[in-house]
């Protein structure tokens, strides 16, 4: 009976537990989570369709390589790919055709030393078909000679290959990484807006139903606020993990991402930035919610906050897709209001150096400390004032 502040930790935990249970048991949580997973599945599926779209490949043959037309067609066919083979008048014309996109690949050179010219990258199936043809050629040549060491033969065959020249080489994973960055930014944007709004709506629900008066007769405002923020944050984290696990699973299953490590890394960064972003925005949302007493008025006070996050998402994604290393997106991704959406996107895209990530984390932590203090004060000052919308100045007094 002597403790001055009876079990603050327990009180916060009780409040958080109620928030968590109420939200996780609600139908909207299950539906919302399911909807995002379906959306994500659609994205991944589209992605794998887009990247595997060239079922039909046109290959140009020039010089000695023209002899390969028939074996190339049949080998590719057994590998499940239709290859159109055209004869090209000369290497120069062929390169021009590749550059303009009329040809997917140009094959020149002697059958045992093929040279392939492509725009950015050689389709895997065509590559496999060509390699097997070359090896066959080498094998045939070796058989023509007598008294060869079998070991030597197999070494020669293994060494046989093709030389690929890309006219406009690109990072082969660039597209996938960018898509991953986009998806990460989208999921974070959604989570922050959704759970930030949930905090504000919870605050208003307590105000409009007046239950806050009963609560604050036994609980301090900061305990109520902390419990609500932690409880809803945990729900958001749970949802993020479900979505993330589904996303990584889908990506791995459909081979949409050649590097499963990248997806896991993006998920890790996503979780870290979700937590930073959520705690950055949660008290701001709560403070905004505490200014009004009716659900109808919530939208008005939330719009400016959601707008900031939306700008971070829209501007950020545009900059990211155009050029992930762009200085503007770099600077924005360091600033606390934008970092939670932009930085994980850049991390997923693989363009954020460690020092920038660290700097952004530190800035975000500092901003969280400042905003939690300010938001807590506004909340404590406004949460018991019902009726008209509370002015910020009055709440801070």
């Amino acid at each position, binding site marked *: 009976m002597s403790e001055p502040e009876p079990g603050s930790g327990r009180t916060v935990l*009780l409040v958080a537990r109620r928030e968590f249970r109420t939200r996780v048991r609600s139908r909207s949580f299950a539906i919302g989570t399911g909807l995002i997973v379906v959306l994500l599945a659609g994205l991944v599926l589209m992605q794998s369709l887009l990247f595997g779209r060239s079922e039909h490949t046109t290959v140009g043959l020039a010089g000695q390589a023209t002899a390969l037309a028939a074996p190339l067609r049949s080998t590719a066919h057994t590998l499940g790919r239709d290859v159109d083979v055209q004869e090209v008048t000369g290497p120069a014309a062929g390169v021009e055709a590749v550059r303009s996109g009329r040809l997917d690949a140009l094959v020149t050179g002697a059958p045992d030393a093929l040279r392939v010219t492509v725009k950015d990258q050689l389709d895997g199936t065509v590559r496999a078909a060509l390699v097997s043809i070359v090896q066959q050629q080498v094998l045939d040549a070796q058989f023509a000679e007598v008294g060869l060491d079998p070991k030597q033969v197999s070494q020669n065959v293994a060494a046989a290959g093709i030389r690929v020249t890309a006219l406009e080489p690109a990072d082969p994973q660039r597209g996938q990484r960018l898509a991953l960055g986009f998806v990460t930014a989208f999921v974070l944007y959604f989570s922050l807006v959704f759970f930030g709004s949930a905090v504000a709506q919870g605050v208003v629900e307590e105000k409009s139903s007046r239950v806050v008066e009963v609560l604050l*007769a*036994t609980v301090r405002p900061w305990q109520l606020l902390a419990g609500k923020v932690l409880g809803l944050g945990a729900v958001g984290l749970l949802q993020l993990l479900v979505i993330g696990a589904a996303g990584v699973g889908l990506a791995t299953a459909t081979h949409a991402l050649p590097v499963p490590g990248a997806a896991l890394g993006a998920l890790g960064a996503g979780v870290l930035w979700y937590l930073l972003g959520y705690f950055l925005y949660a008290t701001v949302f709560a403070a905004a919610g505490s200014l009004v007493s009716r659900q109808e008025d919530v939208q008005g006070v939330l719009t400016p906050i959601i707008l900031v996050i939306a700008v971070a998402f829209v501007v950020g994604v545009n900059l990211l897709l155009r050029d992930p290393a762009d200085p503007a997106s770099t600077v924005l991704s360091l600033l606390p209001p934008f970092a939670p959406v932009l930085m994980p996107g850049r991390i997923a895209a693989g363009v954020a150096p460690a020092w920038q990530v660290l700097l952004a984390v530190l800035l975000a932590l500092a901003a969280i400390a400042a905003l939690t203090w300010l938001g807590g004060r506004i909340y404590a000052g406004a949460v018991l004032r019902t009726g008209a919308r509370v002015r910020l100045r009055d709440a801070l007094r």
Partner: protein
Amino acid sequence: MHDTVLAVDRIAKRYGDVVALDGMTFDVRAGELFGFVGSNGAGKTTTMRIVLGVLAADAGEVRWRGRPITLADRRRIGYLPEERGLYPRMRVLDHLVYLGELHGMGTNAAIGAAERWISRIGLRAHRDDRVQQLSLGNQQRVQLAAALVHAPEALVLDEPFSGLDPVAVDVLAAVLRERAEAGVPVIFSSHQLDLVERLCDRVGIVRSGRMVACGTVDELRAGGSARLTVTAPQAPPGWADGLPGVRVLGTEGPRTLLELADGADDQSVLRAALATGPVQEFSRHRPSLTELFRDAVTAETRAA
């Protein structure tokens, strides 16, 4: 000596230019039912909110067992706010358990107490309903259970009887009596003055943020004067004017209501009445709380 549990000492509170409380002072003792009456806007609700700490006083002090009240003390108070409020989508049992736990009860103890109070207030059939599905009267019962679930050491109830049907009024009155007999001080405000008079050990009358009268109903009466009702059909108007120590409060057909000053002789009034003709009724009575309240309030108005 009385065992004072809760003391409100010279509390002042202003809302901008409006003075809500101006030196509000009273105390409540263990095992006593204290009725808190006053006109709308007199400051009853503001006082209760300050006691519970949901509002801060500008000056003055609330004391719990002789020392300034703390949050830990306030958790031991059962509070029914003027503006009722519960989570609309929470189930009745869950809600009471939650509030019990917030007041420091263990989960099992909270569940047990919630079940008991649900039975006591007659809501067993609605135990698993959501609060918003209940009628307003039943929501009010849940709200009362919410104030009682954690076995509070004091009760502060703002208008607990408003919105209750007569059966529920009786149940609540019995509950409050029983709590008081268990040693719990109970403060409640009400406009149903007959109920307050019947139920309360002491009454405080509030006007303009001050306690203008405070004591047992008998003590409050002691300050007032005796009243006479005389029914003399043939008496001319003004028959009682000029009688020593007598003031005419009003007439109502053949009836005249008189106020006797201390020491005035009621028999001389009877003689004067008989002098006008037959007297069908002659009764002396003591003022009800309603009359005391009206006096206290109008006296202040006249003074103002």
